[in-house]
């Protein structure tokens, strides 16, 4: 692998979450603790008869020791009054422990940690190199959340432990003796539960957890002036570093994507009960990828996830939040980190890990357990374009250089084909290689001339 000392242009992948065509997303963050044990996780349940299924979610977890702040953003796009969220929580959360955050922080953190495309230009092979650096800003996406509440408890064994309104959400914290009772309560109160909800709720109840139930308060929502629901944030203490995915799978319709942004002081965060795999990165790709980096990234992620049988957690980014190189977006400011839930003061030591999970009920039967390692090595899903020198070059080195470039093109095509599963011939076609970078007649395979095919033009 050659060195790339002079990044000339950087382009972040627009979050592929944006494409999520689905409506009801699911989102979970979770924590079971030793003493006041337990978890956050939820499934979205529509009131009335809206169709239910999940697509993609984003979670920010800021954690230091047992202290944890979770922010959850969903891409719910339906009617606000149809929206409801049920999340198991470790303890009765007081009003002050719940906050309605700003969607923009998700956009910022997504942009900052996005997979990126870096472009480098070859120097004149007949002259020494000169470095040049520039970075482009990023784009991102996401969507929202909401709530509602109600009474009639005792008969179903459900106790409403607390009730309050935060932002556009009406929130109730429930405890229950039995999951059947909880299910009855939720149905009585107009929540439409997916099949199997009771069985999925039961283990959390037996672990002594409470349930956080939220709906949109339409009056407050109208007053907020925002069309999209804002992220919910929770602050609590728990030993358990985990994301329960199980509840969320109830209204799943095919594989779901979850992006976890883990903020910590020690180092990289990884799964302890699933493999954590780095996505292939820092490879050279053909120049045309620049026009459609998002398609490339999507195809690449699809293929890698399939290769792992949807049983792995992928690392997309690990970096000290103080800087980046090359930057897909400016580093997060201390104020932004605070918004994202960072509660410690020396924010400059914060490490951001971006994990991307694609899961199904079959491949992720157990909640996702996490651990913060002491690994502070940086990693990013960066892909590289190298533009050849096209100016005049008249020296002995030029011929060797051209030869190198041709070999490079071939390598880039094969890499792209391997990463995405795109057909090699199509990739080569799209590269539109022209002289002097097209393959020399004598370097072409012997069979090419057999049928007078050309591979350098469409």
């Amino acid at each position, binding site marked *: 692998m050659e060195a790339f000392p002079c990044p000339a242009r950087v382009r972040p992948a627009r979050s592929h979450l944006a494409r999520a065509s689905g409506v009801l997303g699911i989102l979970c963050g979770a924590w079971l603790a030793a003493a006041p044990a337990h978890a956050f996780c939820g499934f979205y349940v529509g009131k009335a008869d809206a169709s239910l299924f999940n697509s993609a979610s984003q979670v920010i977890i800021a954690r230091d020791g047992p202290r944890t702040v979770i922010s959850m953003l969903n891409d719910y796009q339906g009617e606000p009054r149809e929206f409801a969220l049920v999340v198991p929580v470790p303890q009765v959360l007081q009003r002050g422990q719940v906050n309605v955050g700003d969607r923009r922080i998700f956009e910022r953190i997504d942009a900052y940690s996005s997979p990126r495309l870096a472009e480098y230009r070859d120097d004149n092979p007949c002259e020494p190199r000169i470095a040049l650096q520039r970075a482009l800003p990023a784009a991102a996406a996401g969507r929202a959340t909401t709530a509602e509440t109600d009474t009639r408890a005792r008969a179903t064994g459900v106790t409403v432990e607390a009730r309050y309104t935060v932002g556009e959400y009406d929130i109730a914290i429930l405890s229950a003796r039995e999951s059947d009772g909880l299910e009855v309560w939720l149905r009585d109160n107009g929540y439409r539960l997916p099949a199997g909800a009771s069985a999925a709720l039961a*283990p959390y109840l037996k*672990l002594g957890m409470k349930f956080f139930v939220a709906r949109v308060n339409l009056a407050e929502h109208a007053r907020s002036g925002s069309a999209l629901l804002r992220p919910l944030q929770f602050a609590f203490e*728990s*030993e358990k570093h985990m994301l329960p995915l199980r509840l969320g799978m109830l209204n799943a319709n095919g594989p779901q994507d979850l992006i976890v942004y883990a903020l910590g002081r020690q180092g990289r965060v990884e799964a302890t*009960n699933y493999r954590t795999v780095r996505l292939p990165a820092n490879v050279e790709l053909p120049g045309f990828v620049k026009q459609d980096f998002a398609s490339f990234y999507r195809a690449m992620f699809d293929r890698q996830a399939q290769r792992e049988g949807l049983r792995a957690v992928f690392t997309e980014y690990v970096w000290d939040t103080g800087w980046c190189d090359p930057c897909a977006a400016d580093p997060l400011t201390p104020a932004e980190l605070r918004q994202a839930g960072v509660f410690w003061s020396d924010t400059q030591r914060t490490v951001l890990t971006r994990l991307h999970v694609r899961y199904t009920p079959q491949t992720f039967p157990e909640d996702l357990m996490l651990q913060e390692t002491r690994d502070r090595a940086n990693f990013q899903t960066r892909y590289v374009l190298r533009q050849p020198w096209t100016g005049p070059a008249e020296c002995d080195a030029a011929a060797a250089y051209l030869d190198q470039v041709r070999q490079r093109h071939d390598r880039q095509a094969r890499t792209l084909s391997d990463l995405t599963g795109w057909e090699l011939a199509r990739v080569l076609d799209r590269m539109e290689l022209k002289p002097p970078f097209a393959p020399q007649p004598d370097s072409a395979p012997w069979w090419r001339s057999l049928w007078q095919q050309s591979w350098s033009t469409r």
Partner: protein
Amino acid sequence: MVAQPVAAVLVDAMNAAAAVGAVRAMKAPDARVLQIAFLGTFLLIGVLARDFTVAPLQVAATFAAALATQVLWLRALSLRQAGVLSAIVTSFGLSLLVRADSWWVHPLLASIAISSKFVLTRADGPGRRRHVFNPANLGAVLAAFVVPGAWVSPGQWGQHVLVAAWIVALGSVVCRRAARLDIGLVFLAWYLGLLGARALALGQPAAVFAHQVNNGALLLFAFFMISDPMTTPRAPLARVLYAGVVALAAVLWQFTAYRPHGLLVALFALSPLVALLDRAFPGPAFAWHPGELGRMPAR
């Protein structure tokens, strides 16, 4: 140094025994030779197929440090016959378990782990001493909780039936060779029983249990760590009890206290219990070769 005065006594006892042991060793290969072959295979599979993030330099440094430390201690205590097989086993164990973002962590842990066999020892009958901790276990616990820039990745194996089957099969062979098949299997029985009971009590689907069990790290632990005959009780009944206590502690640590590395922590914390169990349940001492009895164990 605790080991120093003991060494002199040991040397005398060794001289007679070592010759016999060496001859017998020719007939049946040392269980550690098989163990080395299997651990080496796992490391290779891990690096090639499971993208373990261990650098060749780290592996090389682990071996170099472990072997050097072993040789130095053997020289210092005049225990040359004890050999270096166990240091190789420990090196593989550390390479499989420990991850670090620098090159020095692995050799440091290897040196500490090997030295612990000569320093952290206990009396084991007249004129004999045994080490208290399985050296790879000690190294992994230090990596997981103490050493800066080091960590342990329990999820690195993933859940693959094929890998699991291989580890069970190969582990069984090694355990049988080491005459300690019982503890690995008994431990698994305890651990699976406890997890199964927990899953039933919580009403978790069977898939959760299957996922927790079908785990390369658990099987490696059962067949290559807790089964280390040098650091497990002698009497069969004591081994059954010990396996049960370790399994219970591991489950409590991991699934009730919600802390990571339950297996490693439980074995480490309960290793001192072996001395008590040996006192309560006397049994034949273990040696890698029959002729080694009376020699200071080198593992």
